[in-house]
């Protein structure tokens, strides 16, 4: 303790004052000398006083009366009394009032100075402890607030982004903080159910800020009708945009398709997914063949799902690996295999399994968080067949027509933007995909064959030559060459009519020729006629009319 300490000495006897102050100054301690209660009181504004040395009897009273005031103004400063009396009850009262020790007269300077120094040292340690404790309390308070915020975020995520569905059972045990696990499910527009169990690195706020963008993206992309592979890539893109790169999101994605009778599973950095048959026998385990989201770049992620016939499976169990942390069974950690065995005993009852694992913990207060999910596929198949696939069609009729001249015909974005416009009326994504294909084929047909007059069979011999021809022909496009496109939606008939005509020489509709699968050309119009309920070409007005049924 190198800093100069200041001590207030209250002593009416001049020689004692001298002895005491000398002894302390030798130690490098600064002394404020006072000889009456009043003089001492006048020094009470000085915040640098670290210790009080008080004689008991003074001309203007007993120094006892100063003690409450000193305790209030200097709660951390030790008070030592200098006295020649041995009235033990008085000493006891002084101790009670907050006095730390007594120094007997006659004074032994060396003993006094060492005692004072020792109290000063201790007082500094006490002050440091006091500050550390204050610091600790404020950190704890911040942490509590953060925890409350994490819970709020988590609750918000669950309330706004999750729907419960019969057949998806989940059991959790939480150590009272937000654990970073989340189970979420959503229905795709095509009627498939997509379920995600995610486990973010860390706990509390750190986990919540990792999970939040993942959940929002998951829901938005499922709603948009994206495939599960595309959802994975979107999650990875979102992760790299919004989450610190040392925070990862391990997850299991499951898609259940009643229409295709399949269940597809992707496991990224999670324990095995356990598959059970009707007799609740374990028939397969799906290990994590992928890494948690956030580790690989988006284009390095494999979107390969393991797919099984839906009706071959009755139960599916999967869990977050917090489940095996801290769990002890006969003084050893529970292994993954132990946990798999426990779950396999009652695959339909996650609550039961989690209670059993909980009971194996050595220290019940230290348990980590557990999330264990069980899918009852019998119930889910029933649920999905009872849920009608929403396919609302736009109520009002609309029609647009466009005319594209010269170089405007080469705008690559035209078709997609037009399809996006049509989609904005509320058509399903699969319908819009069909519209895109039909419109693209008709436009390419009109531009390449109608206007540019490139021979279609050139594609047969040499695709590159075809492209060269096309590039050359494009240079000659003039502003009186045009393609007209019109789109008509009939809400009563639920049909979309696409009509395309061009200023060129028209094209020959050949009779249906079977196309072999390894032929690289000539599929355009056959695709159009398969996707449309009606396809007609009027050579007189060089116009193709197609109708798509919604």
């Amino acid at each position, binding site marked *: 303790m190198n800093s100069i300490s200041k001590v207030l000495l209250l002593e009416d006897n001049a020689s004692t004052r001298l002895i005491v102050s000398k002894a302390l100054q030798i130690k490098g301690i600064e002394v404020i000398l006072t000889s009456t209660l009043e003089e001492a009181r006048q020094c009470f504004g000085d915040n640098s006083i670290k210790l009080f040395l008080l004689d008991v009897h003074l001309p203007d009273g007993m120094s006892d009366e100063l003690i409450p005031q000193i305790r209030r103004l200097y709660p951390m400063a030790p008070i030592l009394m200098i006295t020649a009396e041995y009235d033990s009850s008085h000493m006891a009262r002084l101790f009670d009032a907050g006095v730390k020790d007594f120094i007997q007269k006659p004074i032994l300077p060396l003993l006094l100075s060492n005692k004072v120094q020792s109290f000063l040292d201790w007082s500094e340690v006490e002050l440091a402890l006091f500050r550390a404790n204050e610091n600790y309390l404020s950190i704890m308070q911040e942490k509590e607030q953060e925890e409350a915020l994490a819970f709020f975020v988590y609750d918000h995520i669950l309330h706004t982004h999750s729907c419960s569905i019969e057949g998806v059972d989940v059991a959790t045990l939480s150590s009272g903080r937000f654990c970073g696990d989340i189970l979420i499910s959503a229905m795709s527009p095509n009627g498939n159910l997509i379920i995600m169990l995610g486990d973010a690195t860390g706990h509390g706020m750190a986990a919540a800020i990792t999970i939040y963008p993942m959940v929002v993206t998951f829901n938005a992309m499922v709603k948009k009708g994206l*495939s599960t*592979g595309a959802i994975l890539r979107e999650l990875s893109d979102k992760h790299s945009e919004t989450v610190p790169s040392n925070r990862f999101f391990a997850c299991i994605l499951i898609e259940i398709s009643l229409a295709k009778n399949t269940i597809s599973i992707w496991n990224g950095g999670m324990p095995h997914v356990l598959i059970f048959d009707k007799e609740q026998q374990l028939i397969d385990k799906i290990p994590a063949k992928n890494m948690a989201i956030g580790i690989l770049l988006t284009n390095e992620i494999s979107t390969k799902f393991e797919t099984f016939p839906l009706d071959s499976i009755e139960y599916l169990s999967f869990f977050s690996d917090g489940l095996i942390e801290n769990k002890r069974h006969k003084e050893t950690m529970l292994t993954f295999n132990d946990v798999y065995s426990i779950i396999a005993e009652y695959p339909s009852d996650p609550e039961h399994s989690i209670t059993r694992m909980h009971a194996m913990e050595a220290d019940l207060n230290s348990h980590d968080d557990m999330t264990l999910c069980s899918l009852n596929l019998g119930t889910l198949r029933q649920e999905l067949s009872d849920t009608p696939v929403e396919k609302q069609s736009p109520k009002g009729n609309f029609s647009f027509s466009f005319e594209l001249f010269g170089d405007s015909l080469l705008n690559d974005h035209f078709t997609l933007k037009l399809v996006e416009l049509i989609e904005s009326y509320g058509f399903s994504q699969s319908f819009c995909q069909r519209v895109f294909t039909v419109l693209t084929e008709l436009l390419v047909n009109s531009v390449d064959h109608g206007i540019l007059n490139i021979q279609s069979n050139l*594609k047969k011999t040499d695709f590159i030559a075809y492209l060269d021809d096309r590039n050359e022909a494009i240079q000659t496009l003039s502003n009186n060459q045009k393609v007209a496109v019109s789109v008509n939606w009939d809400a009563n008939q639920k049909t979309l009519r696409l009509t395309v005509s061009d200023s060129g020489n028209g094209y020959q509709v050949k009779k249906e020729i079977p196309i072999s699968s*390894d032929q690289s050309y000539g599929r355009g119009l056959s695709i159009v006629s398969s996707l449309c309920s009606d396809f007609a070409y009027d050579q007189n007005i060089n116009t193709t009319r197609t109708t798509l049924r919604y």
Partner: protein
Amino acid sequence: MSDCIAINMPERFDFSTHSWFTKTYEEALTKTKTIILDFSRVSYVDSSALGMMVLLHRQLNKVSGHCTIRNANGTAKDILDMANFEKLFSYE
């Protein structure tokens, strides 16, 4: 030689993708004989996409290679099926 190379197909696989696709698979063919076309993100296709895939198939045939289509879905899958592409490619 790599075991296999996965090509992540874009949302729109049509005539406008032609030069990117050709360049990508030709580069991949210098490193592998097994190609995966990841269709996870593909929403829009046209007949020239089918044509380009047939050209890829021919290149693979020359080196006894193989191509797998991963996660084809929606109308893209319907159109591949319409073209009987299961004869040229495998699906997963």
